[in-house]
C-alpha cells in the first residue's frame, strides 16, 4: 500500500472541504507537504487551521476532496471507483504513524511522564515493556526531562508537560508530526523551551505541520508557510517572503496585528 518512493508527498490535500452542520469550516483546501518539510499554518482563530490538522489524522472526517498521507487516502479506502469508510481499527492503524501534539497537552494525568510515553507503544504496537521504557527514557532525555520520568503531569510546568507530550508522540516513531498551537497555552517564559525541542526535531528531518502564532518560529524553522482565513488558503509560500512582503490584504491586516 505505502508508496515509499521519496517523491510521494507526505501530505497531499486536494480541494479538502469540511462542514459542521451548515458551517463550512474548510473550503477547498489544497496544499502539499513534502517529506522532511516543515509547514507552518497561521491565521486568525476560527480560520479552520486546527480543523484541517485534525482531518489529517482523521479526528475529523473530510466531507469532500481528497487527503492523502504518504500516498494513502485518509479515513477511506478506494476499491474500484467507490470509496469505503474505514473500519475504526484501520483508522487507528493509520493514526499510529502520525504524531499529534495538542494545545492543552492532554497528558494522561493518572500516569507518570514515563507511563504516559510507554502506554501506546506497549498497548498499540506490542513493544516489550523493557524496550519501551528504555526508549522512553531516551526520549525524555532528548526533550531535556530525563530526571522527570516519575513525575505526574500535575507536578510539571506547562512547558515540561508539552515536552513530555512531544516525547509521547515521538515514542510511536511517527513519520509525520502535527502540532496544534503547541505553545498557546503556555506562560510566555516557557514558550522557548518547547520551540527549542521542536526546532531540534525539525533539524533531525522530521516532517512537521505546525499550527502556530509564533511568527519568529515560522520564519526561522518553517520551509513553507500557509496563511488561512475563513476556511480558505489566502496566501502561501516561503515564510520569510510571506511574512516580510504579504501580497494579500487579509494577510497584511493579520500580520500587522501579530508581528
Amino acid at each position, binding site marked *: 500500500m505505502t508508496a515509499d518512493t521519496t517523491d510521494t508527498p507526505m501530505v497531499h490535500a486536494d480541494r479538502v472541504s469540511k462542514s*459542521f*452542520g451548515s458551517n463550512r469550516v474548510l473550503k477547498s483546501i489544497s496544499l502539499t507537504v513534502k517529506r522532511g518539510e516543515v509547514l507552518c499554518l497561521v491565521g486568525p482563530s476560527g480560520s479552520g487551521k486546527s480543523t484541517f490538522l485534525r482531518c489529517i*489524522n482523521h*479526528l475529523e472526517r473530510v466531507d469532500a476532496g481528497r487527503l492523502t498521507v504518504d500516498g494513502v487516502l485518509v479515513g477511506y479506502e478506494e476499491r474500484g471507483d467507490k470509496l469505503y469508510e474505514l473500519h*475504526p*481499527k484501520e483508522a*487507528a*492503524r493509520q*493514526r*499510529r504513524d*502520525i*504524531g*499529534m501534539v*495538542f494545545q*492543552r497537552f*492532554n*497528558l*494522561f*494525568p*493518572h*500516569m*507518570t511522564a514515563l507511563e504516559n510515553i510507554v*502506554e*501506546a507503544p506497549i*498497548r*498499540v504496537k506490542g513493544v516489550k515493556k523493557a524496550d519501551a521504557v528504555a526508549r522512553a527514557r531516551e526520549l525524555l532525555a532528548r526533550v531535556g526531562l530525563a530526571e522527570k520520568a516519575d513525575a*505526574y*503531569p*500535575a*507536578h510539571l510546568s506547562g512547558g515540561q508537560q508539552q515536552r513530555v*507530550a512531544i516525547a*509521547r*508522540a515521538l515514542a*510511536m516513531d511517527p513519520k509525520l508530526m502535527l502540532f496544534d498551537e503547541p505553545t498557546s497555552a503556555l506562560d510566555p517564559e516557557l514558550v522557548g523551551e518547547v520551540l527549542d525541542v521542536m526546532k531540534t526535531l525539525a533539524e533531525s528531518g522530521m516532517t512537521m505541520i505546525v499550527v502556530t502564532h509564533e511568527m519568529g518560529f515560522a520564519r526561522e524553522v518553517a520551509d513553507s508557510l500557509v496563511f488561512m482565513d475563513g476556511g480558505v488558503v489566502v496566501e502561501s509560500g516561503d515564510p520569510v517572503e510571506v511574512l516580510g512582503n504579504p501580497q494579500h490584504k487579509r494577510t497584511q491586516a493579520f500580520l500587522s496585528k501579530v508581528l
Partner: protein
Amino acid sequence: MTRETVLPAGDEPEPIKAIRLKHPGRIVFAVILVAALAIFVIDAAQRPAYGWDNFAKFVFDKRISQAAGFTLLLTIYSMLIAIVLGITLAVMRLSDNPVVKSVAWLYLWIFRGTPVYVQLVFWGLITTIYQTIDIGIPFTQPWISIESKGFIDVFWLAVIGLALNEAAYMAEIVRAGILSVDQGQEEASTALGMSWIQTMRRVIIPQAMRIIIPPTGNEVISMLKTTSLVTAVPFSFDLYGRARDISVEIYDPIPLLLVASAWYLAFTSVLMVGQYFLEKRFSRGVGQARPEKKGGTPTETVPIVTAPATVVDRGEEEKR
C-alpha cells in the same frame, strides 16, 4: 542598578498578635445540644420498653452474627456484580453502536423504573413463572428440560435481584464519571492509535474513578441497608430477617431492632473509613490531596456536586 529583592535586616514586620474572634453563639448552642442528648440517653437507659437486658443478650447471639455475615455477603456479591454490570452498561450507552446503546437504555428504563421491592418479589417468583429451563429450538419440543426449582437457591435470587437493580444506578454514576473526563484525553489516545476500548479501559475509566468512587461508596452503604428488603424474595437469614424472627420468639421487637441497627451502624462506619482510603488512592496525579478541613472527620465524603459542573455533553462538543 539598585534592584532590592532582599529586605534589609531588621526590617522584618512583627507578627500580628490579635485577640481571636469569639463565637459565643456556638458555645451556647453546643451546651444546649449536649444537655438535650444527655437527657435523652439517661431517659433511654431507664426506659423498660427498650429492653436493654434483651439487647445485651442478643447483640452477640450466634444467630445474629451469622445473619450479619449473610447481610455482608449479600452486599458484597450484589455490589460486585452491579459495579461490573454498571460499567458495562455505561460504556454501552456511550458507544457509537446504536444497537448496543438501545439495549443499555432499555435495561435502565426497566430496572430504574420499577421499585426494588417489587423486583425482589418477582425474582422470588421466577421459579413459578419459569418452571422448567428448556434448551432447544423455541416453540418445538425441547432437547433438554431442567426443573428450575432447586436450580438456584433464594440467596442467589436475592443477590441477582439486588445486583440487577443496583446496576442501573451504577451505570448512571459511571456515565457521569466518564463524561466528566476531559474530551482531550480521548482525542490524545485516539491520536496515539489506541482503540476505543483501550481508550476507555486505560485512559477514561481510571480518571472517571475519582468521580465515581464517592457516590459508589454511598451506594455500597445504601445497598447494605437495602439488603433488609430481601425478605420479599423471601430470604430471611439476613440481619433484619433474623432479628425479626427472634423478636417474634421472645415477644419483644424493640431490643432486636436496636441489635440490628447497631450492626448496620457498625458496618456502615467501617465502610466510610474504607471509602476515605479509596478516594485517596484514586486522586493520584491530581495535584495535592484536598486539604482536609480542620476538625472535619476523615470520613467526610467530598460532595459530588462538582461532577455535573464538569460534565460536558459530548454531542455538544461534536458540533464545534
